[in-house]
Each structure stands twice: as structure tokens, then as C-alpha cells.
């Protein structure tokens, strides 16, 4: 086998020599300014899109709800949503900065694989969390907006409107409302899990397998 590998090495080197100018200087110059297709770049692009959506879509929507339904401000709900949106900025910002940091590294292969694994894992966790948080917020907003304008807006009003019958019926209604919320959460959870698996599942498995291959003595 040693001999065969030596012969192979010579052959390969001869081939490389004959192709030493495979890419011309001009091609190389062009290459280094093209768009990258690396997973880190993809994650960064996606994170920037999420951040921009949060700023340019969610914030105006939150403001619009506050203006159109000033009654919601009585519950400080708009502020709460607003704070929640703002709270995600540093998290997304942290991950974006990580992608820039990561690109500047020239760590060894095992470390590099671990970094990529952690980055994708965190990205998936954050996306799952954001998706799961959006369901109860939307659900509560929807319920609160069903309180007629003539009524003062409070959780008590909502309770008074929804639960007017006997205790057993109230309990059933409460359980139904809770069931709907849980159903939404479950649907979102499984949809997100499926989506993230389609996006990164195979890739993550491959990375994990390579790490364990490097760890196994």
C-alpha cells in the first residue's frame, strides 16, 4: 500500500503541476468578491432578515396596534410586546457578531466543526423560541380585541365576557381556550421542528458524525 500511495502521490502532483494555472489572476480576483454559499453566510443572511423584519415590520405593527387600539395600552400589553421585540435584538445581534467572528477564525478542523454545530444549534433554538412566543401573544391579543369598545379593557372584563355561565361550563370553556392555545403551540412546535430539520437536519447529523469520528480514538 505504501508503494501505491507513493505512486498515487506522484501522479497527483504531476496532474496538479499541469493544472497549476487552473484559475487565472483575474478569475481569482472575481472569485473572492462573489457571494459565499457557506452555512455561516446563510445563517447570517437569515439572521439579518429576521432582525430587519423585527424592526421594519413588527415595530410598526406594534405601534399601529397601539394607535388603533389605544385601549390595549391600558393593560401595558403593547409595551410588553415592544420590550419583547427589543429584547430579541441583542440575541440576534450576538449571533450575527458570532458569524463574523467565526469567519475570521482559522481553527483546526475539530474546533471548526464544533463552532458550526453550536452556531446552528443556537440559531435553531432562537428561532423555535421566537415562534413559540409569538403564539400566546397573538392569541391573547385576539381574545382581548373581542372585548367590546363600550367595556373597560381589563383581564377582568375579558373574564366577565367569556365566563358568564355556571362554574362547570366556565371550566369547560377555560379548558377549551387553553386547549386551543396548546394546540397552536404544538402545531407551531412541530412545524418549526420539521422546517429546521429540513434546513439543517442532515447537515447537523453529518457535522456531529464527523466530530465523533475525530473524537473516537
Amino acid at each position, binding site marked *: 500500500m505504501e508503494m501505491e500511495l507513493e505512486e498515487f502521490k506522484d501522479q497527483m502532483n504531476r496532474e496538479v503541476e499541469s493544472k497549476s494555472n487552473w484559475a487565472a*489572476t483575474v478569475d481569482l480576483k472575481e472569485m473572492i468578491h462573489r457571494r459565499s*454559499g457557506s452555512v455561516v453566510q446563510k445563517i447570517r443572511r437569515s439572521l439579518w432578515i429576521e432582525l430587519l423584519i423585527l424592526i421594519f415590520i413588527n415595530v410598526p405593527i406594534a405601534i399601529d396596534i397601539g394607535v388603533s387600539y389605544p385601549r390595549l395600552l391600558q393593560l401595558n400589553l403593547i409595551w410588553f410586546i415592544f420590550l419583547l421585540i427589543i429584547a430579541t435584538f441583542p440575541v440576534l445581534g450576538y449571533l450575527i457578531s458570532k458569524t463574523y467572528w467565526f469567519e475570521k477564525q482559522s481553527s483546526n*478542523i475539530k474546533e471548526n466543526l464544533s463552532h458550526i454545530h453550536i452556531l446552528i444549534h443556537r440559531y435553531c433554538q432562537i428561532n423555535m423560541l421566537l415562534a413559540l412566543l409569538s403564539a400566546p401573544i397573538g392569541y391573547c391579543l385576539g381574545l382581548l380585541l373581542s372585548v367590546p369598545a363600550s367595556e373597560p379593557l381589563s383581564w377582568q372584563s375579558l373574564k366577565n365576557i367569556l365566563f358568564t355561565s355556571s362554574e362547570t361550563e366556565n371550566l369547560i370553556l377555560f379548558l377549551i381556550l387553553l386547549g386551543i392555545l396548546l394546540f397552536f403551540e404544538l402545531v407551531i412546535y412541530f412545524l418549526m421542528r420539521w422546517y429546521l430539520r429540513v434546513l439543517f437536519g442532515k*447537515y447537523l447529523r453529518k457535522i456531529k458524525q464527523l466530530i465523533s469520528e475525530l473524537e473516537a480514538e
Partner: protein
Amino acid sequence: MDREGEFIKLLQQHQGIIYKVCRVYTKQADDWDDMYQEIALQAWKSFSTFRGDAKFSTWLYRVALNTAITLFKRSKKAAVLPEATEQLTTPASEPDPKEEQLQAMYHAIAELSEVDKAIVLLFLDDYPYEDIGQMMGITPNHVAVKMSRIKTKLQSLTQQSLPK
């Protein structure tokens, strides 16, 4: 010379490394181009970390292997072989046993895992086990063990693919 010019010059001189990595890690013409470009791009992006304390070739190998191993591939159906592969895989009118053996070796290496391919490439470029270990993030002993297993695997794979 500006930083970009310096980088292009170095890359031009060491293109063989990118060529070898692409040769071992790709099977399709489209993949070849994508990988070559991605390696050049990643090398440029992390060029600021190259301080000259290590050889440029070692540094480039590290970047190229990291890029090749972690490339996020889209599934493509086209199965066009790159020009270079064609040149080597097209059988001559009269089969040359040596050529067949080399082809068998290329096919055998293609069957190895991404990690093993990296180790073989570095081994073929005469890197000592210590350097290979540093690049891979494992101990030199581990490299030696892996290399011995790889050789056995290559032996059995080449024997399988050679005509009896």
C-alpha cells in the same frame, strides 16, 4: 502591493492545494467550481488572521479543508465529471495496469469519510503526523492509528475495484 494583491499572488502560487482538495472532495463539475470559489473566498475572508508565523501553504490547507468538509451542499442531480476527472477516468484504448491502479485509488479515496480524506491528502503532501494532528485537532498518535486504518481500507477498496 495592497493586501488583496498580495493575497492573490500567494493564492496563485498555491493553487495546487485548492486543486487537490477540490479533486478529492468533489464529484461533479458544478460542485468543483463552487468549492474552488468558496475556498478562495473563505481564504480571503480569513486572510487577516494569517500572520506569517506558519507557512501560507499550511494555513491555506487548513482553510481549504475546513471549507470543503463543512460546505453546505445543495442536492444536485447533474452528474457531470470535471475535466480533470474525465481525463483520469476515461479508459485508454488499451488498459494500462498502472493507470487502472491509480484510478482505483482515486475511487477508493472518494469512498472515504470527509475526515479520512483530509488525513490522506495531508499525508500525501508529506505533512508529519504532528502537523496533521494540529490541523485536524487530534493527537499525532490518533493520526497514526487513523492512517493505518485508512491504508487497510484503501487496500481493500482498490482490490475490490480493480478488474480480476
